[in-house]
């Protein structure tokens, strides 16, 4: 029950490998520990945890055709890192820059409402232990975000305006999914798995909003701006087996190849990365033949770069829609695709910030982001500069502080 110094640990390991008396002693201590574990109050994990855990044994996706595609070959040829790695936080605006007072109200009210929801769904809340009444009551007392969002997002159209991007990022990335699950909780027909999903989505949404509007919550934003490494495991935990919703479509995410290691250096960078992933997830899940889609994070395909990939089986007519989303094609855009085009332009904006040494044309031509069809699968991806050397910043292991 004590702790050994590093030198003591090394000597002990040597002893443990060779000395039977030491092995016997360790085995006995291990048994003693497990005896104490029985003092814990018995609690059952949600059945959803079983499904998520068993996803671990699925064979990793074979991405070879995608990685060997012309698009990724082009990226490999042209990829170059920026001189200074982008740490997120650019592309933010003041709330006062929002011209329409109603829009401003929606942002302020939504943020306030979500701050109120977070403690009702965190891991210590009564909802996390099966009593959903407080959450339902709160959701009923407040306006339905889903209804507000449906009304508000109609006139959204793709643009390069920064204020519009901050609004769109706040409304179209994680909010549609979150609004859906809160509405389910409002109806009282929710379950533990959805409460967990609300918790992760709500936490992400609040960070995305703070990163989009610098004066929304300066105190928490200051926390988000501290150097704190974020590992891929945080994305793996929240996306494995995650139910997803984007307006009228429902989907189920799974995680394929995920390298292990840091992916962002600050919460504001992680918020932007998250937002980009939600954009991909929204675009692909709403077109998936069966609602299922896969996220992958790979590091070796292009040196110096992390590739985030979302893919699914998509029928060819829906795949064709993805080809016309890039801003270069906006003149031909059907109105039904307006929101989706906004998601694409948000991704373009983020790419521009991440790789400022390239023009948008270069980024697009060199496949820093894009869409590729391989057989009956559609792949969407974006590149992000890898973190080469981990420095001495704190590590965000649970993201619990500064929610």
């Amino acid at each position: 029950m004590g702790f050994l110094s590093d030198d003591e640990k090394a000597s002990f390991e040597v002893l443990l490998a060779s000395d039977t008396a030491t092995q016997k002693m360790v085995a006995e201590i291990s048994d003693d520990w497990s005896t104490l574990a029985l003092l814990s109050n018995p609690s059952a994990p949600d059945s959803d945890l079983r499904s998520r855990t068993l996803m671990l044994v699925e064979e990793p996706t074979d991405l070879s055709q995608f990685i060997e595609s012309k698009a990724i070959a082009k990226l490999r040829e042209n990829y170059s890192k920026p001189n200074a790695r982008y740490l997120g936080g650019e592309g933010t605006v003041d709330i006062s820059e929002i011209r329409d007072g109603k829009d401003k109200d929606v942002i302020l009210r939504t943020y306030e409402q979500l701050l109120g929801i977070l403690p009702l769904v965190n891991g210590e809340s009564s909802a996390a232990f099966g009593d959903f009444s407080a959450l339902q009551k709160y959701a009923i007392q407040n306006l339905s975000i889903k209804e507000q969002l449906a009304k508000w997002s109609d006139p959204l159209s793709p643009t390069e305006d920064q204020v519009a991007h901050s609004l769109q990022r706040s409304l179209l990335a994680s909010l549609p999914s979150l609004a859906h699950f809160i509405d389910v909780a409002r109806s009282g027909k929710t379950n533990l798995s959805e409460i967990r999903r609300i918790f992760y989505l709500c936490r992400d949404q609040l960070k995305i909003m703070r990163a989009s509007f610098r004066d929304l919550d300066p105190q928490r934003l200051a926390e988000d701006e501290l150097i704190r490494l974020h590992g891929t495991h945080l994305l793996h935990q929240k996306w494995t087996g995650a139910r997803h919703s984007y307006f009228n479509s429902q989907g189920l995410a799974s995680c394929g190849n995920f390298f292990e290691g840091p992916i962002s250096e600050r919460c504001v960078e992680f918020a932007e990365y998250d937002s980009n992933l939600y954009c991909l997830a929204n675009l692909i899940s709403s077109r998936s033949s069966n609602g299922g889609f896969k996220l992958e994070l790979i590091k070796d395909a292009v040196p110096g770069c992390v590739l985030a990939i979302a893919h699914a089986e998509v029928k060819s007519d829906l795949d064709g829609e993805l080809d016309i989303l890039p801003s270069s094609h906006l003149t031909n855009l059907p109105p039904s695709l307006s929101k989706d085009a906004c998601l694409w332009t948000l991704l373009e904006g983020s790419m521009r910030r991440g790789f400022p040494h390239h023009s948008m044309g270069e980024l697009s031509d060199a496949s820093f982001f894009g869409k590729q069809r391989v057989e009956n699968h559609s792949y969407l991806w974006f590149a992000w500069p890898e973190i080469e050397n981990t420095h001495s910043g704190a590590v965000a292991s649970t993201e619990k502080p500064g929610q």
Partner: protein
Amino acid sequence: MSPIETTHWERIRDRKPDSLADLYDGFAGAMFSLALEVLGDRWEAEEVTQDVFAYVWKNPKAYSPVKGKFSSWLLVITRNRSIDRLRSRKRKVVHGEPIEALSNRQDHSSEDGAEHAVRADERSSIKEAFKQLPQDQREVLELAYFKGLNHQEISDQLKLSLGTVKSRIRLGMEKLRRALSSLRP
């Protein structure tokens, strides 16, 4: 505790179909209960449980039968990872205030609970034996096991000498071991 021993580990190591599902069904409840007891946070406890299964699946050779029972080893890892999280969360241990007792949290979702994962009689015996310990021994065991404090930290917190902390832990563990010896082969 139900005997989840080396055959489970060998099946995991040999990548047998359903081996992870079987291990999960036999043991997730006990692992999750322990993580939840330490962390008090359901989502974090789920993450720890899932992490441990992922670790075992990816690194089956991290375990070796010389380390004791596979089941005990799993609980040791679960406890250590939970304590790591607790420490990284920098949750304050309250100085000079009454020490939190083991939770009496009501889990509305666990009516058919995790009892299948461990023998209920063993659980109730250890709880009963624990209740019979003097309060000062219970206190140091809880701080060491569920709060992850080392001897020195317990000594500082309770304002006791290091020797007293060590002897209370040793005495407490010996009594628990004796109480359980009649249940174990």
